């Protein structure tokens, strides 16, 4: 199915919200250094699936996960796995930006600091580097000490991306990261994703089919907690094999 080496391999994953069977027997290989998008109607389980990839359901009592998620071949749901180490490998971009309650500089430096980086020069360098990576440096270089909340929403989202990159992840998880943004900011984030896939594996949840087409290489259509179809994006959107996918792509299903 996937011509490249899978980075994350989900195998027979089932997730229950109490009695609700939210994800049904999900198996998917997410290719390395490509953008994979999850599309599907609201409530289909695409965000839920994304959050299983870095165990963000851990603190919900009513959620039960069965099956395997292999990250570079290792099951992240196995016993004795260090959750923080897994999460460190994945940057998360949520629907709305949530900057940490501190300065722009400290937002970026936070991750490296909690992982033991103390060298001021290195931190300075990292902050500059990652802000440049998300094309934010020129906009904020004169006010690095200002609270991150003073930035516009679009800038905040790029800051959150840089904050995630600063812990040197291998994977970027995007949960409809442009849904709160204006068209210009959306375009910037999309351009960044296209650049970042050189170095990172990207998983993108989106409800915008055009975005999936613009950004992603592979696309999975999820419906009622099941993966209906998984294929290269062009093929899935233009020539879907399954009837459900066809209906959704044509706008008959929502």
């Amino acid at each position, binding site marked *: 199915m996937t011509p490249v080496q899978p980075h994350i391999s989900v195998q027979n994953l089932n997730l229950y919200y109490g009695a609700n069977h939210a994800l049904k027997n999900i198996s998917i290989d997410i290719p390395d250094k490509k953008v994979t998008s999850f599309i599907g109607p609201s409530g289909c389980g695409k965000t839920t699936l994304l959050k299983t990839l870095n165990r963000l359901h851990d603190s919900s009592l009513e959620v039960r996960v069965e099956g395997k998620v292999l990250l570079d071949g290792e099951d992240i749901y196995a016993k004795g796995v260090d959750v923080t180490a897994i999460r460190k490998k994945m*940057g998360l971009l949520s629907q709305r930006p949530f900057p*940490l309650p*501190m*300065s722009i500089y400290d937002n970026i430096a936070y991750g490296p600091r909690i992982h033991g980086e103390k060298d001021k020069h290195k931190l300075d360098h990292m902050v500059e580097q990652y802000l440049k990576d998300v094309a934010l440096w020129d906009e904020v270089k004169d006010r690095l000490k200002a*609270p*991150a909340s003073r930035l516009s929403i679009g800038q905040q989202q790029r800051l959150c991306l840089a904050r995630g990159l600063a812990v040197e992840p291998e994977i970027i998880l995007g949960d409809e990261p442009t849904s709160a943004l204006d068209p210009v900011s959306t375009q910037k984030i999309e351009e960044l994703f296209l650049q970042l896939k050189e170095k990172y594996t990207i998983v993108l949840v989106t409800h915008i089919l055009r975005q999936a087409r613009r950004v992603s290489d592979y696309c999975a259509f999820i419906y009622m907690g099941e993966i209906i179809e998984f294929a290269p994006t062009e093929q899935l959107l233009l020539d879907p094999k399954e009837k459900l996918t066809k209906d959704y792509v044509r706008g008959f299903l929502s």
Partner: protein
Amino acid sequence: MKAKNIEESFFKILMIISAFIVVGSFFLIVGTIVVKGAPAMSWDLITKVPSGGFFLGGEGGVLNAIIGSFYIAAGSSLLALFISLPVVIYINAYLPKRSWLGNLTRMGYDVLFGIPSIVYGAFGFTLMMYLGMRASLLGGIIAVTLLVIPIMIRTMDEVIRTVPNELYEATFSLGATRLETAWVILKQVAPGIMTAILLAFGRGIGDVASVMFTAGFSDNIPTSMQDPTATLPLAIFNQLSSPYEDVRSKAYASALILTIFVLIISVLARMLSKRFSKNKV
């Protein structure tokens, strides 16, 4: 249409009356204290400890009670903070949402919140008897700590619960541990934490029933944790019970001092939380 207009004006008038009752009683109380207390206010009252027979019209002031109240309120706020903070961090950042232990804790502090302060006083007193302690500064601090813990936890818990889950997810996703995440959350709600401390302080400084048996009373400023300690509310009570007119008017002056304290704390709480929310991200 007409009926709706009548309904609208009827409830509007009710609301105005209610607002007036609140604002009115504030001014009435402060006014009474100022009018009755200001003539008896003197430099001696706030800078001197009572000399013999103070409550029978003797010389001196209530400095012992001012200092005592301050010690007790500050000591218990600090002690309560050290107990409350771990509790709220634990039930919010460690326990899963809607866990039975979290629910039980929340029910517990809600019940404690409603317990009258005299019960804390009696409980503290019993505890002291058991431990063989006399009425003392330490006893007062312990009883008031018990009294203000539920207030502090409840206020903190309420603000921490407003933190969106996504902020937890954001820090978790950076590979932060629960403790590291808790620090970020606390930073986010710093103004609320400040308000909780000051609320507890304000409650602690004004309560009489909890300190009546536990802190005792003394004409001297306490020099150790074992000394019996005077408090302003109790001093006011004692002065008001005096048969002498000028001692009773000194009670109003003491009440004025206490009220000014509490007002300063409220204003401080408001200012601090504004300042923090400006810097807050």
